[in-house]
Every structure is written in structure tokens, then in C-alpha cells.
């Protein structure tokens, strides 16, 4: 008689898997991670009168407000050739990041039902949020293309580089979404604070007026501001977009630095998110 081990086929179910296994599990559900944001896009705004037009209406209204206050009112457009285009590029790209991070913050808490019934790598939730924001950014990009033609910038070969810019930008947004997801899962207060952090970040990112205006004079006590601007990845990301759409000068060394920074931010964010994988969806 052979010795039979009835437990031979048993294995441990755990969220504590190797990174390569985790990534393989994520890859196996790649169709899910695209289908989920498509579904959100389909069902969001179904309760508003204008429906999906708000995906565009919202950033357009922001641009309108900034244009009136800073362009017409405070004359912040001095020295900028095509201010409306310059402003739109800044606002749209900046909003992509803020919406991705804010969406990432609620990615865990708003999908509790799904997590309670199905086991899958939880990192897919913030990723799908970032993809969903990227999909709506497509509308904004087409508006930017239209405005570029209307304001005489014309169609440029630089547009071909846009996918690469999007990759770098998305790496940054993913990193931010991962970090916000874990923090907000631990402390729900985080989602209340994030909008204010981004409002603050808006003013040191050169979204609605050029930062050089404040740094021209050799003022004392600007060290902090200079440091913030030097380390703020949004400044570099906006430089990339403005190079694509407006042909503004670009410093190649700083581009390389931005690529490295965004990639590192994604890796750190992912690791940080996974550190609490076992805790998500509890209770």
C-alpha cells in the first residue's frame, strides 16, 4: 500500500506573496483594470443634466475663472505670448494629477463591496482610478489640440512625443495615488486634506502664472521657495507639456531628472501601498 498524503495539494492563501507573483496576478487581471474605469466613466455623471460633458466642462470652467482673475484682472499674462493656451495646458495637466491622487485616496474605501467578495491584488484599484482619470484627460487633450490650431500654434511634430510625456506623468500620478490610498485607508481624514495640499501646490507649480516672476529679484529669504520649486515634479511635468504644445524651451538634463524621479516615485509608492495590503477591505 502506498502512503497517501491527503494534504499534498493544499496551499496557503496569503496576500504576502513575492513581488513577481503579485505582478503576475495583476497582469492576469489586466482586462479588469481597464474595464473598471470604463464602467465608472459610463455610470458617473448619469445623474447630472449634461452628463459626460462635465468631464470637460469642469476643467474649462476652472480655466475661465483663472483667466478672468489672473489674466484679465491681475495681468499675470505679461510676457506670455499665448496665455490662454499656456494656462489651459497648465490647468489640465495639473488637474490630471490632483484628480488621480484624490481618486486614489478613495480607491480602497469606495470599492469595499468588491473587496469583500473577491480576492485580487488591491493595487489594481488605485491603478484603475488613475486609468479612469487618464481616459477623461483624452477629452482635454483633444480640446488642447483644437485650441492650439485656433490660436495659431498649429500642429507640431512635437505632438508625437506626447505619449512619452503621458507615461512619465502617469508614473508620477500612480505613485501619488498609491501613497494616498494607503494613507487614507489608515486615516480617513487624508481625503479632506488632499484638496488643500493641491491648492497650495498649484501656486508653486507655475500653473496659472510663471514662477520666474517671483524669483527675478535676488531677494533674501526665497531659499525655501526656490527649494520647493526645484524639487516640485509638477513644474517639470508642466514644462514638458508646454514644450509639446507651445514649443517653450526645455532643459534636457532636467527632463532626465524628471524621468528618474517619476519612476522612483512610482516604485516607492507601490511598495508603500503593498506594505498594508493585508489590511485593505477589513471590516
Amino acid at each position, binding site marked *: 500500500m502506498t502512503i497517501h498524503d*491527503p494534504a499534498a495539494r493544499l496551499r*496557503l*492563501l496569503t496576500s504576502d506573496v513575492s513581488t513577481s507573483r503579485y505582478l503576475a496576478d495583476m497582469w492576469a487581471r489586466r482586462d479588469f483594470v481597464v474595464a*473598471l474605469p470604463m464602467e465608472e466613466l459610463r455610470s458617473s455623471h448619469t445623474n447630472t443634466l449634461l452628463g459626460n460633458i462635465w468631464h470637460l466642462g469642469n476643467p474649462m470652467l476652472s480655466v475661465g475663472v483663472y483667466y478672468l482673475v489672473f489674466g484679465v484682472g491681475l495681468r499675470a499674462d505679461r510676457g506670455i505670448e499665448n496665455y490662454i493656451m499656456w494656462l489651459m495646458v497648465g490647468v489640465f495637466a495639473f488637474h490630471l494629477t490632483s484628480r488621480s491622487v484624490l481618486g486614489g485616496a478613495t480607491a480602497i*474605501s469606495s470599492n469595499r463591496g468588491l473587496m*469583500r467578495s473577491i*480576492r485580487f491584488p488591491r493595487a489594481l484599484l488605485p491603478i484603475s482610478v488613475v486609468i479612469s482619470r487618464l481616459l477623461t484627460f483624452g477629452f482635454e487633450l483633444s480640446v488642447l489640440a483644437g485650441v492650439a490650431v485656433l490660436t495659431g500654434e498649429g500642429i507640431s511634430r512635437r505632438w508625437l512625443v506626447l505619449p512619452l510625456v503621458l507615461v512619465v506623468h502617469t508614473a508620477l500620478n500612480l505613485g501619488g495615488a498609491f501613497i494616498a490610498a494607503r494613507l487614507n485607508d489608515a486615516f*480617513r481624514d487624508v481625503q479632506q486634506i488632499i484638496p488643500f495640499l493641491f491648492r497650495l501646490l498649484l501656486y508653486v507649480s507655475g500653473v496659472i502664472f510663471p514662477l520666474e516672476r517671483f524669483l527675478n529679484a535676488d531677494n533674501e529669504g526665497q531659499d525655501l521657495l526656490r527649494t520647493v520649486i526645484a524639487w516640485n515634479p509638477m513644474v517639470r511635468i508642466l514644462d514638458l507639456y508646454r514644450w509639446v504644445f507651445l514649443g517653450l524651451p526645455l532643459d534636457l538634463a532636467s527632463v532626465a531628472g524628471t524621468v528618474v524621479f517619476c519612476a522612483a516615485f512610482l516604485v516607492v509608492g507601490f511598495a508603500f501601498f503593498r506594505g498594508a495590503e493585508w489590511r485593505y477591505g477589513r471590516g
Partner: protein
Amino acid sequence: MGDAVSAELSIRVRDLHVDYELFENRRAALRQRVATRTGTGRSYVHAVRGVSFDIFEGDAVGVIGSNGSGKSTLLSAIAGLLPITSGEVLVSDEPKLLGVGATLMPAATGYRNIRLGCMALGMSAAEVDERVDDIVEFTQLGEAINRPLRTYSSGMRARLHFAIATSVHPQILMIDEALAVGDRAFRKRSNQRIQAMLAEAGTLLLVTHSLGEIARQCTRVLWIEQGELRADGDPQETIDAYRSFSP
């Protein structure tokens, strides 16, 4: 285990403990977190306390016990949806859990939820295309399949969830009170599917307060009370013991 020599194990649970940290469970605000650090202490709910059992392929196991005895927590822990505090859970295949609280996307239609649920279970879009018609057919929801999930009754939701969870032919199916809300016709069809699964060496874990249902469906019953395993054995004996405990 004398007569079970040739049967393969499908679930092995060893000295399982599951705790909830109360504040963490409520997703505490920062204020509360700080308060716990500074002295009020943390409180735990010890939901499952040292449970051990083996379940073999082809077993249909009922789980009974009072409300709040830890049945649902036990099932969630086996399904890998809850972190365990200590002990060990081993399974032969990814268990599929059907619970009443499960919701997918309330604003999307039943049809869209089927597609999404199947993909979350690991199907590719192509596989979903292939099977979605069968799944829709099984739900027998008719026109309602194109209505948003939030308009569904609990019975209709149960049909949808059962159809999704069993579409992947799970080896281990765990049902937490999810079928109690189904109508007669659906109970009959879901039972047929469960029996077919058991015949193919599948395993069923069924939590329900309908003791008649347990007596009909199950070959073995676990009785959980206050997180501990009170009894484990023949359905009728265990049910009788439970009845005399909570008349």
C-alpha cells in the same frame, strides 16, 4: 479518518484566530488614533478563537451558530479576504465566497456587473465574451439584466452573484446566507449546480439559519459559538444539540 484514506483534503484549518482591532475596524479618525496611543488602550474583538478542522473533497459542510458567533468571519478568513491573527488556513483551490453584503457596482447594469465580476475573478475579456450569455441565461433575470444593479431586489442580486461566482467552476464554494433570499425556481437551479459541483469532487461550505436546508444539503455540520467550535459531526446530531442550546 479511517474511511477517508483516499479522499483529498480541500480545506485545512489549524488553530485559527481572527481578531478585529476595534478602532482600526471603524477606520478611525486621526483623533481617535492619537487617543489610543495616549492611553485609552486598544480594544479587540476576538471573532474566531482557535478553530481547527479538515474538510475533504466532495464534502457539503453546514456551518451553524447564533448571530455574531463568528461564522461569516470564519468564511471570509478561509476565502483569504480577512487577515488572520494566528493559526493556519490551507486550501486546495481559490475559494469563492458568496455573501449577502457583496456588491459590485450599484450604478452599472446587471449585465455590466457580470462582465466586471468575471474579470475580477481573473477571466480575460475574451473568456467573458464567450461565457457571458450562459451566465445571463442562468440568472433568468430577463429584461432586468439591463437595469442598474441598485434597482435589484435582494433575491435578484443573489441570482446575479451566484451566477458570477459559479461561472468559474470553483472547487470550493462558500455560501453565506446568500441563497436564502432566492425564490423557489432559483433555489432549484442553484441546488442542481451545487450538486453537480459536489459530484465533481467540489466542496461546499454553507452558512444559513435554515436548519432544514442544512439537514437536506449537508453531510456534516460545524457548530460555532462565540468564535469556538462547539461541535463537528453528523448533521442531525449537531442540529439537535444546537436546538437544545438555543431553543
